[in-house]
């Protein structure tokens, strides 16, 4: 039996390969994601191993504030005291800041987007486990306020030489620093900053620049004497620490930092896994389809096995065995492709500044296990239905001329499919609109169930469309059209299953298109309604910038007011939330804040404005005090107003944020002009004033709206990536189905050729059939995507997605794309059909 199964496999290599391709893709995404995540993990952990001491002492709250820079410090006295703790060899205070970027000779920020820019003092402390940390290896250590040392990779990229004056953009008090480069730093024992830039100053200078001149430190490293473990030393250190400070082992601190960074890029992992999921779900459709067709084609052969005495189980087993081999091959190829994918992602990351080339790819045991497991399970599960059906072929079928595969009735499919769709839609609705835990899972499972249900019901539901298509073809393409139309009606299950493969991709694409265009429209509306300022200054990288920029802006002629905005991630009643800080003085110049309660006059000091939505959700009222967790500790802010804008759920004053311990860094400046001042003149003046700070961007209202839409444009880019994937898989599915149909219909094609169908007509016939399948899939997908998209945007109405906008032109393009898919997918099968030798085709059994 297995010999026979094996032979049958070898005889159908190409067909099986095509059906496995989706599995290959899916497994590649799974494998690539795992490899890359592991590599990233290892690499990040490696960097942070170099950047922690044996024990790290820091102010409590400094690590709570997420990535918002704080002004919390450790006094120098305490650092001196730490050096005398039993087991400590030495203790060194570190000054560190983020948002310090090196500007290269080409006036561009080194590292561009994403990679952190770090400024530190030259403490000379050894890193954990006696590893030598980043040190000056060329030139000398910086001394005084006009000298700096920079890490070797950054110096190379910025194209600076020792002795040159370099430009640094700081988020501290002074925006532009121009010290002389006196030293180049590197890891003496090897190591990589993965693209981060590090600038080193002497301790006094660093304190002046980043800590407001206090003799204090951001944190301190305590180095263990030989034989003292990190944990032992930590316990000793903890004993002497006053309230407000904490000690952690270096290993733990490194882990924390690494996982924070990993979390920051987790969107990528999710994105890749979504790809993997789509590829696998669609792949399983293709496998069901392929195996159904192979079993149908071999039904007489399988019946013969049964007639010769094979049991049902043996027949099922032989089909499943084929699936096993196919799954194994597909997964292995996929895993190999996954390695390439991981390398590709690594290369892509290097391009945007996160250079991981120092880290070799990491293969955890879970990578091959997960990849093979996923590929095998999906393939076998998908092949199970056709395999089980194959066992129901009666032995007598071997002797009959016309073997019909036992099929479940279309009515039953319609019933089951409809129920599944309803259940899926119901689950989705619960997840979107009801208050249940794990809403994402409800929505995801509901969507999947609805799609499977649609696919199951589609042989019945697609009939009207296929009849319509057949009618249209008859009308416009004559007898070739009739034949094509009838062919696609001939096996509704097969046609619908093939179309379903395309449906899934297009459902997602349509849903996301609707979400994207609705979000864009909502952003535009919010800005149009609430934004009164004329010019916005912000940081291209999205990090804070120096308050000096605002001072600079205020001095420009034509500027009436400059309103500073800052933002901080804080905890409120245990939940993380976003707190915006603004300068109350000229706030109404630049923002329309219509208060439904309270008064803007009270908005000063420790007060907060909340949005109407938050207020009604949380039951806030005027005069109530909210306790936020700030770096300096819990802070009470009194609610003085409720506004009805769609942004700034919590809006407080700059004073409150500063007192709370957040570093004084502005995130954006809104500028109102004097009456009569020309926006373009002022903008030009502002641009000139900030020309030496390339991370600062000056935008007018239109440009600002465009900038706010930029994240949505990235979403749209993802949509097109998804579309591409969906198209590739769909093409494979259609190629596969058509290819198999043509093999089945060899004699019929021979006959048609004998009675005068020429090759062009034959190709057209196959193409028309293919287009019908593709358009069916597109219509199902777009239809379902419309439902999902409208539901999704409706559920996000409370989150500020006020407008639901359906991008009809894009949907039209998707439909046209499906016609193109049909044509492309038909190329190979059509050629094959046209090339069949008439005589041999007629003679085929």
């Amino acid at each position: 039996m297995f010999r026979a199964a094996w032979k049958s496999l070898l005889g159908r290599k190409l067909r099986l390969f095509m059906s496995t391709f989706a599995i290959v893709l899916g497994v590649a995404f799974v494998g690539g994601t795992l490899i890359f995540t592991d590599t990233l993990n290892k690499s990040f952990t490696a960097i942070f191993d170099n950047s922690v001491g044996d024990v790290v002492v820091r102010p409590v709250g400094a690590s709570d504030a997420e990535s918002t820079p704080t002004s919390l410090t450790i006094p120098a006295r305490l650092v001196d005291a730490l050096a005398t703790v039993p087991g400590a060899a030495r203790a060194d205070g570190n000054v560190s800041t983020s948002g310090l970027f090196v500007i290269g000779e080409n006036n561009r920020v080194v590292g561009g987007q994403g990679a952190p820019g770090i400024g530190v003092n030259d403490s000379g402390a050894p890193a954990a486990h006696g590893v030598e940390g980043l040190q000056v290896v060329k030139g000398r250590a910086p001394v005084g306020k006009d000298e700096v040392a920079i890490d070797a990779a950054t110096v190379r990229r910025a194209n600076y030489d020792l002795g040159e004056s370099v430009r640094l953009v700081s988020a501290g008090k002074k925006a532009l620093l121009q010290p002389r480069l006196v030293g180049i730093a590197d890891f003496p024992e090897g190591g990589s900053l993965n693209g981060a830039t590090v600038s080193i100053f002497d301790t006094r200078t660093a304190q002046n620049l980043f800590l407001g001149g206090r003799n204090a430190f951001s944190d301190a490293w305590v180095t263990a004497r030989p034989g003292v473990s990190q944990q032992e030393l930590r316990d000793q250190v903890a004993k002497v620490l006053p309230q407000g400070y904490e000690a952690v082992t270096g290993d733990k601190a490194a882990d924390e930092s690494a996982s924070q960074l990993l979390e920051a890029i987790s969107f990528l992992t999710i994105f890749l896994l979504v790809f993997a999921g789509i590829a696998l779900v669609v792949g399983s459709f293709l496998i069901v389809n392929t195996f159904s067709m192979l079993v149908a084609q071999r039904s007489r052969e399988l019946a013969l096995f049964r007639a010769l005495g094979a049991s049902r189980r043996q027949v099922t087993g032989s089909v499943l065995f084929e699936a096993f081999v196919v799954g194994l091959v597909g997964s292995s190829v996929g895993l190999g492709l996954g390695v390439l994918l991981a390398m590709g992602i690594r290369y892509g990351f290097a391009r945007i500044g996160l250079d991981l080339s120092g880290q070799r790819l990491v293969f955890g045991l879970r990578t091959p296990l997960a990849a093979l497991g996923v590929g095998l399970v999906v393939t076998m599960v998908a092949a199970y239905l056709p395999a089980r059906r194959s066992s129901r072929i009666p032995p007598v079928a071997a002797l009959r001329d016309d073997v019909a595969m036992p099929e479940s009735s279309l009515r039953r499919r319609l019933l089951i499919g409809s129920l599944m769709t309803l259940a899926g839609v119901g689950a989705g609705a619960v997840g979107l609109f009801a208050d249940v835990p794990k809403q994402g899972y409800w929505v995801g499972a509901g969507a999947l169930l609805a799609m499977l249900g649609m696919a199951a019901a589609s042989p019945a539901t697609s009939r009207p469309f296929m009849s319509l298509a057949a009618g249209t073809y008859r009308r416009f393409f004559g007898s070739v059209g009739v034949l094509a139309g009838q062919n696609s009606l001939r096996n509704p299950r097969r046609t619908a299953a093939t179309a379903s493969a395309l449906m899934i991709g297009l459902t997602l694409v349509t849903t996301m298109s609707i979400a994207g265009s609705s979000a864009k429209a909502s952003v535009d509306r919010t800005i149009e309604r609430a934004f009164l300022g004329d010019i916005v200054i912000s940081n291209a990288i999205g990090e804070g910038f120096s308050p000096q920029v605002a001072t600079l802006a205020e001095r420009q002629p034509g500027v009436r007011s400059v309103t500073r905005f800052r933002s901080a991630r804080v905890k409120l009643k245990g939940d993380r939330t976003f707190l915006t800080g603004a300068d109350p003085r000229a706030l109404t110049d630049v923002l329309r804040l219509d208060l439904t309660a309270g008064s803007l006059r009270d908005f000063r000091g420790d007060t907060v404005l909340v949005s109407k939505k938050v207020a009604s959700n949380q039951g806030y009222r005027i005069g109530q005090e909210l306790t936020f967790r700030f770096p300096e500790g819990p802070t009470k802010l009194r609610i003085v107003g409720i506004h009805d804008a769609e942004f700034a759920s919590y809006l407080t004053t700059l004073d409150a944020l500063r007192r709370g311990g957040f570093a004084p860094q502005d995130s954006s400046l809104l500028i109102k002009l004097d009456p009569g001042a020309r926006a373009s003149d002022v903008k030009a003046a502002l641009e000139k004033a900030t020309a030496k700070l390339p991370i600062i961007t000056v935008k007018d209202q239109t440009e600002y709206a465009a900038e706010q839409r930029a994240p949505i444009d990235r979403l749209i880019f993802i949509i097109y990536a998804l579309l591409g994937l969906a198209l590739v898989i769909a093409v494979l599915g259609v190629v596969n189905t058509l290819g198999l149909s043509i093999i089945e219909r060899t004699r019929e094609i021979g006959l048609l050729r004998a009675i005068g169908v020429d090759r062009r007509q034959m190709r057209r016939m196959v193409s028309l059939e293919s287009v019908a399948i593709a358009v069916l899939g597109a219509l199902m997908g777009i239809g379902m995507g419309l439902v999902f998209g409208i539901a999704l945007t409706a559920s996000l109405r409370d989150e500020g997605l006020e407008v639901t906008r359906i991008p009809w032109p894009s949907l039209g393009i998707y439909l046209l794309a499906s016609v193109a898919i049909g044509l492309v997918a038909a190329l190979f099968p059509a050629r094959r059909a046209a090339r069949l030798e008439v005589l041999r085709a007629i003679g085929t059994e």
Partner: protein
Amino acid sequence: MTTVENAPAPGPQAPVVAASVVGLTKVYGTGAAEVRALDGVTLDIAAGHFTAVMGPSGSGKSTLMHCCAALDTPTSGTVMVGDTEIGGLDDKRLTRLRRERIGFVFQSFNLIPTLTAQENILLPMSIAGRRPDRDWYDTVIDAVNLRDRLDHRPNQLSGGQQQRVAVARALASRPAIVFADEPTGNLDSRSGAEVLSLLQRSATEFGQTIVMVTHDPVAAGYTDRVVFLADGRLAGELTDPTREAVLERMTAHEARTATGRVES
């Protein structure tokens, strides 16, 4: 039913040749595996006649038909269909020739399963973009006696009915020649007789040229002329054959083959 005015006008000099082959040779394979399916066959097919090609399996009768019907290309020799030499034609011209000048009836799987009987009958003309001649179509439908079955699909028809649909399809476009390859091979004797007499009437009443490949003496008995093939060569012929005469010739031929090689 009018018949005579629908028949192809007979030329002034009879008999007109509908197709002819000269020195037709077809070789499959090379070297030790070489098979000479046809070995220098020269033959005229008279217009308006029902001709049978007979011979045992492997005698080359099917290859002869395939070459005449522009389905296969000869190794050497010439094939004329009407006044067209098909040797130098490319696939496009061969297809057009089949579409316009040739009709087919095969042993089995003759019809497109997705189309109704009527659509099957009109298919070749519809593919060629020609309008069917209404009168001729009615004549053919009445001749095959399928008027009440026209909207049925092939799987709703009996084997004999299916084959009659196939004959109607072959006749409908009024081709120069209809080739029938064992048209009764899959039918019971009664259905077979129906199909054969239909073919016979097509020749006598409509003047349709028909070439039928068969190994059934009964079938051959319906024809005007039987051509015998053996080992790829002509092995004699009979005019106005009867079943008995054909049987006798076949038996004699087999006896001769048993005693040694035969010359044509």
